[in-house]
């Protein structure tokens, strides 16, 4: 049981983080707090993807060591076969999360801009007060 919990501990951390963000998005009435919750949620997803790229045992970042030098010295067309794939972390989640970080920043920027507009118009960021003002017309 203990081994089971430990060997999956990364998932427990992400699920906890994600539920913190989910709760903040649903329950908080302040719009800025909702945006912070959305960011926590997206960060949890990014951590999850990055953790899938980990391989145990002497793994480094996916930058091929002496890549150019080996290729030139051997004069091989297919020198790439010398690459030991167990030595490098999986590069694909890193690439996908670079894209996801960009999307996250874009959504954060637009959300904050909309929040600024709401504040200019209603002079408050509390959701219930905005709804009250909307009902009054």
């Amino acid at each position: 049981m203990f081994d089971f919990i430990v060997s999956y501990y990364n998932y427990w951390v992400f699920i906890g983080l994600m539920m913190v963000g989910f709760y903040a998005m649903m329950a908080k009435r302040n719009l800025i707090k909702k945006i912070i919750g959305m960011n926590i949620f997206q960060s949890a997803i990014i951590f999850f993807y990055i953790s899938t790229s980990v391989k145990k045992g002497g793994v480094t970042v996916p930058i091929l060591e002496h890549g150019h030098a080996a290729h030139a010295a051997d004069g091989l067309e297919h020198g790439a076969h010398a690459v030991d794939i167990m030595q490098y972390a999986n590069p694909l989640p890193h690439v996908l999360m670079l894209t996801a970080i960009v999307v996250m920043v874009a959504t954060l920027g637009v959300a904050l801009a909309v929040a600024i507009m709401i504040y200019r118009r209603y002079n408050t960021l509390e959701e219930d007060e905005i709804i009250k003002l909307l009902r009054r017309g």
Partner: protein
Amino acid sequence: MKILSVIAGVLVGAALIYGALDMPKWGDPHSPASSHVSPYYLRHSIEHTATPNVVTSVLADYRGYDTLGETTVVFTAGIACILLLRKGRKRQGKRHV
């Protein structure tokens, strides 16, 4: 409202924990994510793109169109921010409250 949110969070969290039981263990070198496509990129990155950094070669060469689309996302977000935040000349007197 808060109680409903807590209940929804606990339910979704339980579903996610149930789903995590089928996931590969932490640091498993033979996990599905790192055993099908990514060895190809690691082996052929130097040969195809002459770039030692595999992340760069995938981002800018293999998935170049994806990165182009990504710049479109940033552009759209920037335009949206500008449209929202610029000083509205026509509506300036109309703010109520």
